[in-house]
């Protein structure tokens, strides 16, 4: 009798547990595959983001593939969601002003490599993958120029607080330390610094082979996903929206690269307020390389420029009877006085200068 009762309890408990997993499993599966309009949007106030996603090149990729699910980070996620409900109840924030936190953004970025592994690896191997400690605890820099609020414009543009909340002390005398040690290895220039993931764009598709022009001449070359994130405006500027600066060199106007990518680079590799070439962080090419885009020599994600001379100079070097790779420039020797960004003909052909004079 007792055994039969026990059997009945186990049976009922088994049915209840199986039912729970069946219902919650079906619900979770539905939640993961259905349109965001029927799922995510029914709770999250993300209409503006949904609208941009729907017109983006990533529109075939579900929200959860980049943003994770409600349970991706276990208890942390649940705590985060509870926080959202609390914020919704307690504050009056318009959905247009809702944004991901830096931590959420960095978690999202980790999922970029699921599809863009090569780009991610290149980025990781280059200077743009620097962490907070690499930048904000750099002794040589900190002794040369005092840390200030504007540092975050290009390093840590998604950080929600100020430089004073990040580093202590704010002075040219160290030693400096990060107030939040967990930020030590967090990247200061994540993918989203230069890429607008929800930018308008077309999904990848094969060209129309009936019209060969589509494969080459008429190919759409827009770089929609590339854009600069302005910390000040809390938005991305697409390349076409970015200004092409008027640059000068000793009073003369300099022809800046027509390639819109230059406008992105110069936002952070920027000249002084007078826009004089070579001042501050500027690397606008002048001399023989005037007008050439950054991308012509630098790989966009790793910024590697090795062997880039060969792309254009294999014949010219024969004409000059000089190997550009071994010429006295910073390409061959970083200590050279002939910076590749403003090397002129006369630097290597001093006799030509005499003739022209």
């Amino acid at each position, binding site marked *: 009798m007792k055994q039969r009762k026990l059997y009945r309890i186990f049976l009922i408990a088994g049915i209840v547990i199986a039912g729970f997993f069946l219902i919650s499993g079906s619900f979770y599966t539905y939640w993961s595959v259905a349109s965001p309009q029927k799922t995510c949007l029914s709770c999250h106030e993300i209409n503006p983001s949904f609208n941009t996603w729907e017109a983006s090149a990533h529109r075939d990729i579900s929200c959860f593939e980049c943003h994770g699910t409600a349970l991706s980070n276990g208890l942390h996620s649940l705590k985060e969601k509870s926080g959202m409900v609390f914020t919704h109840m307690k504050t009056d924030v318009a959905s247009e002003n809702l944004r991901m936190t830096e931590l959420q953004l960095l978690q999202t970025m980790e999922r970029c490599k699921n599809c863009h592994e090569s780009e991610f690896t290149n980025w990781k191997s280059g200077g743009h993958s620097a962490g907070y400690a690499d930048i904000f605890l750099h002794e040589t*820099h900190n002794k*040369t*120029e005092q840390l200030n609020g*504007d540092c975050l414009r290009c390093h840590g543009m998604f950080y929600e607080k100020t430089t004073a909340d990040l580093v202590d002390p704010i002075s040219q005398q160290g030693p400096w330390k990060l107030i939040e040690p967990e930020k030590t290895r967090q990247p200061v220039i994540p993918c989203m610094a230069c890429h607008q993931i929800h930018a308008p764009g077309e999904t990848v598709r094969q060209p129309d082979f009936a019209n060969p022009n589509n494969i080459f001449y008429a190919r759409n070359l827009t770089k929609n996903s590339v854009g*600069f994130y*302005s910390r*000040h*405006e*809390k*938005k991305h*500027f697409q390349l076409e*929206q*970015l*200004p092409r*600066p008027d640059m000068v*060199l*000793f009073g003369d106007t300099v022809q800046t690269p027509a390639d819109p990518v230059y406008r992105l680079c*110069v*936002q952070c*590799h*920027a*000249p*002084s*307020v007078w*826009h*004089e*070439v*070579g*001042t*501050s*962080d*500027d690397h606008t090419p002048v*001399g023989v390389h005037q007008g050439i885009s950054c991308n012509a020599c630098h790989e966009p994600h790793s910024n590697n420029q090795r062997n880039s001379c060969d792309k254009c100079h294999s014949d010219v070097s024969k004409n000059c009877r000089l190997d550009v790779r071994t010429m006295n420039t910073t390409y061959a020797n970083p200590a050279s*006085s002939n*910076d590749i960004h*403003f090397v*002129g003909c006369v*630097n290597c052909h001093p006799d030509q200068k005499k003739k022209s004079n």
Partner: protein
Amino acid sequence: MNITRRKFIQSLSLASGSLLLFPACGGSQKSVWRFLTTEEAETIIALAEQIIPGDQDPGATDAGVINFIDKQLVGFYSNFQETYRNGIAALNQYCHEKFSQPFEKLEWNRQTEVLKLMEKNSIEGEYWKENPASRFFRMIRDHSMQGFYGSPRHGGNRDYVSYKMIRIDFPHIIGQNRYASRCETLNAFAK
């Protein structure tokens, strides 16, 4: 309960037809603005366009100054709500009494004359005795300027039209000050 096919179709038609009446439940047409009524918004558009008229460059209307004012009236400028509502009503009352038209329907030059009167505090009306018209004018002028020249994130300066007009590089392109050595190298290059 038995129901005939005829009865069912009649009921279904009636129920479907009544759906058409649902939009009427909302009462009068709602404004597309956050605080302003459609009529008030039209007056402010005309006022702002007078202050920053479009010519070869965009004006206040093109820059969406109205969106800035309306957005701020439910935000940082919520204390101006009453001033706007009463001021616009008083201005349009004056225009109706004098010209039988609201401000936004007046000819351009007449609108300018009315604004000059407001600026000088010479506009007639009971409301303006207690609330100086010059103060209302200054408020509209200041808010129009803010909406035109401020950042788009506040609601105006659509597509950064004013920055483009005055040729401000935006986002600003300003580097640090520490690499003086590169300038020296460039000087050597110039020689």
